[in-house]
């Protein structure tokens, strides 16, 4: 590369836009599916942990161990099972990472229901199921959404690592740029990953405002 090589070559972006788009879509799918799966699995596991307190510590410890495993190592272990460069190879470990954030979020969310509120729900004649659906879960929403924001942003960033096993969405741009000592794809990759994270986080904040207009006061009400 010469001295005059610019940081970004706009013409490269123009020429490669269709493939960048494909990578972007792939990235979004591999980042968000784990969070969705994580939420679907975390709800019953979180509820079970609240119901049977003994379950909570082992579950969280296990999830923390999983969280501490390097993602690349897990990808490689999974390759024989799910295949190289397959979405599932990335989605499965990322689902576990989401769980590590979301199970405590669900448990904390349910724990954030003030005692006097649960008591009065019982005293007014709510049955257990109705209380869960109409009182406990709605009140848990702000805390669960906070966990969901962390899980989503970290998932968006972690997908890139999958590029090392051939399926990393926008992460491919980093490898491509690094191998060719050509900065443009790297810059494009970083900008898009960050933009994606900011957008997803913003949408979740918006959802929180709309879903829980009462939440500003959760400590005083």
């Amino acid at each position, binding site marked *: 590369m010469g001295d005059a090589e610019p940081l970004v070559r706009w013409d490269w972006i123009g020429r490669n836009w269709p493939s960048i788009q494909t990578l972007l879509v792939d990235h979004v799918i591999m980042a968000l599916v784990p969070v969705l799966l994580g939420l679907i699995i975390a709800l019953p596991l979180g509820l079970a942990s609240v119901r049977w307190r003994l379950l909570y510590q082992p579950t969280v410890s296990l999830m923390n161990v999983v969280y501490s495993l390097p993602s690349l190592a897990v990808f490689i272990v999974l390759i024989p099972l799910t295949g190289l460069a397959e979405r599932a190879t990335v989605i499965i470990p990322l689902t576990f990472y989401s769980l590590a954030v979301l199970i405590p979020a669900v448990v904390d969310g349910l724990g954030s229901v*003030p005692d*006097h*509120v649960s*008591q*009065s*729900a*019982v*005293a*007014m*004649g*709510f*049955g257990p199921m*109705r209380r869960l659906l109409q*009182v406990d879960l*709605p*009140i848990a*929403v702000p805390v669960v959404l906070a966990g969901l924001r962390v899980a989503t942003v970290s998932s968006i960033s972690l997908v890139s690592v999958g590029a090392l096993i051939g399926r990393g969405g926008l992460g491919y741009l980093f490898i491509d740029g690094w191998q060719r000592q050509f900065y443009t794809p790297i810059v494009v990759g970083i900008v898009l990953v960050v933009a994606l994270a900011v957008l997803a986080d913003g949408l979740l904040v918006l959802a929180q405002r709309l879903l*829980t*207009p*009462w*939440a*500003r*006061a*959760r400590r*005083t*009400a």
Partner: protein
Amino acid sequence: MITFEGVTKRYGDGTVAVDNLNLQVPTGAITVFVGPSGCGKTTSLRMINRMIDATEGRILLDDQDVRKIDPPTLRRGIGYVIQQSGLFPHRKIVDNVATVPYLLGWDKKKARDRAMELLERVGLDLKMADRYPFQLSGGQQQRVGVARALAADPPVLLMDEPFSAVDPVVRTSLQDELLRLQAELQKTIVFVTHDIDEAIKLGDTVAVFRVGGHLAQVADPSTLLAEPADDFVEGFLGRDRGIRRLSFVSAGDLAVRSEAVVPGWSVALDEDNRPLGWRPDGDGAGLQPFGTVDLKKDSLRAALDAALLAPSGCPIAVDGDGRFAGVVTREALDEALTRATRGPSDG
């Protein structure tokens, strides 16, 4: 009528919260459970709607054993108010109040109409209806709590230290409000407090509990003040029992002299016949302070207080509009106080 028959609550570790409680809570009146922490008053309250189940004995609600009623059904028929309001933070005030009607399957419109009616009844601005609990003050939240408890018009209301978390001024107004509502609604109310003054103010009957879940005394407030059953009750009642008991003796029997003079003093009146002060005989000295008593409404305690406020030593009797109705002499006050002491159970 709620009847406790030999009710005991014993926990797994051997702690006895309530010990062989026998008590009748009369219909249409306020019964206050009062006592220090750990006396079992709240446990006793919660056994009524089965938030806690008794270990022994039974509780009858209009001759029906509460243990034979499915808890949610039982609870929907009993209003419940707790200390920190217990409002649902995620529901608007109107929906909070309509909670039990919703549970009973009323249609939404009817439930909300009923909720609005109740908000008005407990003295809340209807603008509050669409707000969330956090937007209300502690006192307002407590009013909403009372409205919510009344929503499905239950015959029985359980109130567990409902006013202890608000400041004294708000507490007084909430207490007055409750008494006003009760005069209209005549619910069977069980009210738990650790504040003996609140118990005496609100209770038609006061049940004093002592630590260990024993009932120390059950009586109307006047009798309680006049004849505490033992040292514990006497100590719990605190100072000035004699004067506080006078609150339950009407001033109506006081003899009134229509002349506006007593030896050494005369009452100065404005053109509307309202008292301005006591004028001492002789020249020069200005008007002196005075106290008034409305014989139709006030108690003997107010009359005594009015006497103590004036250097003449005599209460000025006034009518409902604050106009001069006469002077109560010290002799008349003395006689009334003597009568009150002789017949402690009158009230």
